């Protein structure tokens, strides 16, 4: 490459090693390909969520592996080993709390990432497949939350799983099989814990890595969508490469998320309830906050009875996910400007408002239970 600066006549040992590897692997070209990707219309803070999600996942993997050094996935030791991590192992409380709040951060950022792609109209042709794989990744993130929740084997864990699996049981035709398959029996027990553990630490991470790789590959194949406004000339003037401006914004985003997770882990560390038993005692079962709106939805009178429950627990969420999956194929108008897509904008606002209202009413409902 003619524009690379000439190397000094006496290369240092590090340069020699680098050149040795570069000659065989093509490191310089690889780095150039990774970093020199034109970002149409220039870097933006709005684009950080994908990279931030990758960062959160890596940190979840690291803290997860560390937790497994002490955690034992058996019904008679899971609770005690988790308490041991929290109370006896040096910094165990921090790693476990980081892992817990990291999962919350994951859900928040998935939400932000999907909203951004939706509002920017970036799911449209030629990026339909990126959107579809993204939806699958969303499902995997939810699966991580659901399976991980059981592992501490406290009352919260046990009841969230009991209700969650009962909901799955309502799937037409295969529901009973799926629920028994997940539980490894008729009721939650050791087999359930074993299954959730394997799914959480082996199956889902493998699936996520594969699909995230595919997601990135598809993203690179189609190229970034860029802003939804501006003439080609305006975009060209503002265009820069992925490195350094976008990477700078990404790393700042990661640092902010890291600081937030650490702060939450520090001020709100994980506290377990009583060990899991099929007798809830005084505990009022409730799912994690990001599932609260669904939980509240199922309290509604319109979703009562066997059919109502099928509507609320399966049909409505299923139809919503199906709509999201079909979105790029229904919405074929190339217009990407959200202010010229009134149905999309109103739809997004309505969904967000509904989630907010249901979540808040679930929180208000707590007071009337004691």
């Amino acid at each position, binding site marked *: *490459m003619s*524009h690379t600066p000439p190397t000094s006549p006496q290369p240092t040992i590090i340069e020699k090693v680098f050149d040795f590897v570069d000659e065989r692997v093509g490191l310089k*070209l690889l780095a*150039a*390909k*990774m970093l*020199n*990707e*034109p970002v*149409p219309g220039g870097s933006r803070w709005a684009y950080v969520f994908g990279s931030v999600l990758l960062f959160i996942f890596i940190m979840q993997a690291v803290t997860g592996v560390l937790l497994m050094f002490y955690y034992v996935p058996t*019904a*008679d030791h899971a609770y005690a080993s988790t308490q041991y991590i929290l109370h006896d192992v040096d910094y165990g409380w921090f790693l476990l709390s980081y892992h817990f709040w990291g999962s919350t951060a994951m859900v928040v950022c998935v939400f932000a990432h999907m909203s951004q792609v939706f509002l920017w109209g970036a799911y449209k042709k030629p990026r339909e497949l990126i959107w579809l794989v993204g939806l699958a990744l969303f499902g995997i993130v939810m699966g991580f939350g659901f399976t991980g929740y059981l592992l501490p084997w406290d009352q919260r864990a046990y*009841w969230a799983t*009991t*209700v969650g699996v*009962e*909901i799955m*049981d*309502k799937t037409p035709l295969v529901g*009973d*099989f799926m629920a*028994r*398959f997940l*539980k*490894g*029996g*008729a*009721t939650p*027990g*050791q087999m359930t814990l074993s299954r959730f553990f394997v799914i959480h630490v082996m199956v889902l991470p493998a699936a996520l890595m594969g699909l995230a790789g595919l997601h990135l590959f598809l993203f*690179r*194949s189609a*190229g970034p969508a860029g802003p939804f406004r501006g003439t*080609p000339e305006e*975009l060209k003037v503002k*265009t820069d*490469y*992925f490195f350094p401006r976008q990477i700078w914004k990404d790393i700042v985003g990661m640092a902010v998320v890291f600081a937030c997770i650490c702060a939450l882990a520090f001020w709100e560390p994980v506290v377990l309830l009583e060990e899991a*038993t*099929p*007798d*809830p*005692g005084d505990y*009022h*079962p*409730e799912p994690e906050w990001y599932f609260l709106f669904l*939980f509240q939805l*199922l*309290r*509604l*009178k319109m*979703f*009562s*009875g*066997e059919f*109502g*429950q099928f509507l*609320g*627990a399966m049909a409505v969420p299923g139809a919503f996910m199906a709509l999201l999956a079909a979105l790029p194929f229904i919405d074929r108008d190339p217009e990407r400007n959200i202010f010229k897509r009134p149905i999309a904008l109103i739809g997004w606002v309505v969904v967000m408002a509904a989630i907010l209202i249901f979540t808040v009413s679930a929180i208000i*409902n707590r007071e009337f239970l004691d």
Partner: protein
Amino acid sequence: MQPKLKSRVRCEDQDIGVLTKVIVDPLSHELSHLVVSVNGAGERQVPMGTVQNVTDDLVQLRLSSSEVMALPPFKRDDYVTTHEVEIPHLEDHLHVTSGEVLVPIPDLEKNVKRRTFFASLTHVVGLFIGLPLAFPVLKYLMKPMYSPFDNNWLKIGNVGKIKADDAGTQFKFKRKIKEAYLPEAEIEKNVWILKATPAVLEKVYQGKDMEFRDATGKTIWTNKKDIPYVAFSGKCPHLGCGFKWRQHKVLGQVFLCPCHLSIYDASGKVLDGPAPRPLDPLPIQVSASGEVQIIDMEFKAGTKSQTRIV
């Protein structure tokens, strides 16, 4: 037609040099400039807009040679090659190379027949490896899913504990479970026992004895309609949480499930909330001394009819 490298470049008045490089716009993927090596006088960057015509080996410009010479010299350092930057599908738009780059096909690969057959055969062999595994793997994972019901009577306490008629009293008990190869373990469970007045008893049994049958249809036990003690499974028939006996502002003393707020009266009838069926009565025996025994059963939640799962 896109210009070819090494083409001659001609101005309005004379030939001026050779096309050495092309410059592409990274967003539109269109050619934006040509770089012309002027005979013996460096390189000039010429906008595509000044190109009048492109033929097989000649680029005709709308400029005069002096106008081209007046353009600023081409600055190589302002550009990178397309190999060093990630621009998807760029090659689909560019045909600037002067010809194809070819490698010979190995002799053994020439005239191979049945390529499609071999490709399909690969998939068939793959299926032969995968298919025989599917069933064993499924059965392997299904092993603990279905187990026979346990119909033994469990002692859970004495009715002396019950303070009032038609009021739910929780009886906690321990139950032994044996999972797979694991040593026998004890889990805590609970049922709600009611000492019912005849009116409530009538609502529970509706004038008929209640029979409990096993999978083959054989009767295990019959709850007589005039025995005043009723036991309800501790599992809410909505989605399986544990319900409580609580004071309700409007409805008085009720069974309330804190999960999705299903409310049942003392007879187990749904008063409010999403539950699809009343509470599940269990087989119960009370001895002369007041000792309560039950058969622990659980039913699938969320269905109108009862389906026993434990």
